[in-house]
Every structure is written in structure tokens, then in C-alpha cells.
């Protein structure tokens, strides 16, 4: 018999190119260890992250989504990250009505020098998602609409 497969969560990360992406890069060049569960998309600004991206990622197989940008006040475009900050709670409230746990979508401020913070966030998020289990939108959607 095959040993039971260990669930490895898939995380999609939208990282702003000025701070958080550079921070993630620093984590890499400093050879910090963190779980390989995150796939990173570099975006110009955390304010560019349309909530549509988040639900699309979740519907296409992600178990969690990380949005990361410059610390408030440090945005390259002055206030793009404030847009992310303002959208986030409403998105979380809406996802909750869909039955999607708030731990699955996380907003973090990670500066270009915070490689360690980035590694820590990915580690923590991976652990949280392992506990939550797979989102499995496709399977659950098929089940929901199944004509018994």
C-alpha cells in the first residue's frame, strides 16, 4: 500500500516589485530556508492586485493567496498599498460568505530588506494551510452541483 500522501498546500503570491519581491529575492540570495509551496507573481504594486486575481487563483487550484507590498507610507506610488489595505477586509468578509477561511488569503507588508520576514510569513502560511487542508474548489464545486 502507498503511504498516505502528505498535503502540500499551493500558495500563490502577488508581490510588489519594489519591496516584497525584492524582499523575497533577498531571502533567496541570503540562502534562507523556507517552504517551496509558494509560486510568486511579481506585480507593479500591491494596489494592482485586483480581487479577481485572488478568486481566480483560488478557483484554479491555489489553497491560499499571499498579497504583499511595501509598508504603509513606503509605497513607490505613494498610496497603492493603501488601496490593498482598504480592499483586503471587504474581500475577506466576502470570501467568508463563500465559506473560504480568512487564513487562506493574507496581506503582509514586507520591505526590500525583510527577507527574513518573507521566509517567516511563507513558513507560517504553509503551516496554517496544512492545518486547514486543501481548498479543492474544483472538487467541491463538482460535488455541490452534483445531481444525485
Amino acid at each position: 500500500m502507498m503511504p498516505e500522501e502528505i498535503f502540500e498546500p499551493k500558495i500563490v503570491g502577488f508581490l510588489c516589485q519594489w519591496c516584497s519581491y525584492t524582499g523575497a529575492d533577498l531571502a533567496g540570495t541570503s540562502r534562507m530556508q523556507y517552504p517551496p509551496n509558494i509560486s510568486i507573481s511579481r506585480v507593479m504594486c500591491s494596489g494592482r492586485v485586483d480581487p479577481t486575481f485572488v478568486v481566480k487563483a483560488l478557483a484554479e487550484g491555489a489553497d491560499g493567496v499571499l498579497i504583499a507590498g511595501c509598508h504603509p507610507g513606503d509605497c513607490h506610488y505613494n498610496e497603492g498599498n493603501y488601496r490593498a489595505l482598504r480592499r483586503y477586509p471587504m474581500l475577506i468578509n466576502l470570501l467568508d460568505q463563500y465559506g473560504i477561511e480568512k487564513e487562506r488569503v493574507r496581506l503582509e507588508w514586507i520591505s526590500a530588506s525583510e527577507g527574513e520576514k518573507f521566509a517567516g510569513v511563507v513558513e507560517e502560511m504553509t503551516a496554517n494551510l496544512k492545518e486547514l487542508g486543501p481548498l479543492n474548489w474544483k472538487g467541491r464545486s463538482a460535488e455541490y452541483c452534483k445531481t444525485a
Partner: protein
Amino acid sequence: MAKPKVAFYWCASCGGCEEAVVDLHEAILKVVDAVDIALWPVALDFKRKDVEAWGPGEVAVAFINGAVRLSEQVEWVKLLRKKCALIVAFGSCAHLGGVPGLSNATNREETLANKYLNSPSVENPDNTIPKIESQVGNYTEELPVFLPCVRRLDEVIEVDYYLPGCPPVPDLILQAVQAILEGKLPEKGAVLAPDKSQCDTCPRKESKPETMTIDSFKRVATSTPDPEKCFLVEGYVCMGPATRSGCGELCIRGNMPCRGCFGPTKEVKDGGMKMLSALSSLINAQTEEAADQIASTLIDPLGTFYRFSLPSSIIKHRLD
């Protein structure tokens, strides 16, 4: 030359779309002059066997309103697809899922329990819930199956055109009928309405300031909007930014914010998310706590942003 035949059919809907046809007023006489109505359950008596007797493509166009919830509706729309040259999804429910689509925010069991057992206006001491099969004397009576989720018409059959709105407005219906009669139709799959946002054609456009912020969300149920100002300035959720224009801004002229029945414009994949994005960016907050607090004043974001379109959203339904 024989007049082209037209069919009307309804699925999970309220009957408002049928009203909309009657709302054509005297223009309906011109329509009736130009076509033969081959099927219209709300007004004329036809049976399924009459429809089954039609040849393929014999009927020029079927206007189907309502979302799809019952097995009977699936059978009917599939039958109509075979017999009709064109299928037009008529109204928000057929187009996007509509208000019945909000049932996807719960599940079948909760919907039935709410309707037949728990609703405050229901008296049902025997806890009777409709059964698919029941025995009456020597006969077995059957009811259509209440399917587990609400679907848009185009999730069940191929749809050629969409007429948006709850209900579609007379102007757009007439234009559509004319286009069909003259064979001047746009590319297949088009929504037969302008591809501009509501804000673009809004009569209150001029009152919209350069920048605006929202300190808390208001509801028309508990306060009255200023009859001149942009609704968003006051904190009322107006779906205008993420809604297609073409309705004549009827709600706004009646001092009600747009609720989004026309759905989003062509390129938008998920109208609710676009609205959430546009609206929450206006929140007047510099800290996470403040943003959280203001967001919490918007009751039921799912039902607000997807009032007419939950089955068209990317996530589609609650994950049970």
C-alpha cells in the same frame, strides 16, 4: 411569406420578464403583426407535445427567461434549443443567474428548509417538504427535481444572445426583435445592450467629485439618499461603476442606487470583484483597523455585489 415564429419560455423567474413584454405597450401590436407567437406559457395554452411536433429550427427565436433550477426546466430548454434557430437569454436570471442565483449562497437543503419550515410566515406543522415522488391512491405523482445549484441558461444550453436587465427595458427588447427580424445581429454571444458603464451615462455624473472617500456604508432601508448627489459620495453602494449601461438609469432617476441587474461590461470576468475593488478603494482608512471597521458596516457584501450574478461569479457558490 409566412411570419417568423417566436417562442417565450420561463424557468426560475418571478414573472417580471413576462411583464416586460407586456410593458412594450402599443409597440407590442407591431411585434405581434410581424411574428407568430408559437409558445408563451404565461399567456397562451400550448403543451409540450406541440413543441415536440415542431421541426428543427422551425421557430426563429426563443426568448427564455429565468435561471435553471428544476429538472423540468433543463428538459424544456434543451427541447427549445433543438427546435429554435436562435436562443436569447432574456433578463438577469437567464443571463447571469439573477436573484434566484442567490440561493447558491446556501445549499439546496437550507433553501428548502428556509422556504418550507423556518420562514416566519410559514405554518407547516407536519414539516412537509415537496417530494419528487408521492403515492396518491393507486397513482404515483411526480414533481420535477429541485437541482442542487442554480445555473445560468448558458450553463445548460448554448445561448446565442443575451438581453440583460431585471427586467429588460422595452427599448432594448424592441431593438433586439427588430435586429432579429431584419437579420442585423451582432456577433454571436453578444449582450444586446451598450458596452459602457452606468457611471458613464448617469444623470448624476456631474455631481461626482474628483476624489471621494467613504467613512461608513449606508443603506436605503435606513436612510434616504440626497436626490441630486452621486450615491457613492454619501456611502450608498451604487453598482454603477461595475454595471453595463442601457437601462435608462431608471433606478437612479427614482433615487435608488444601481443594483447591478445589467451585469458587468464585456471584458469583465467577475463583476462583483470589480465592484468590491472599486468600492473598497474609496474607504477612508490609513490603518488596517480603520479599514476593517468601515468594511464591517457593509452588511452582506456577497449579496450586494452579486445580487444578480452569483452563478456567474468565479467561485459560483458557497463551498460546503
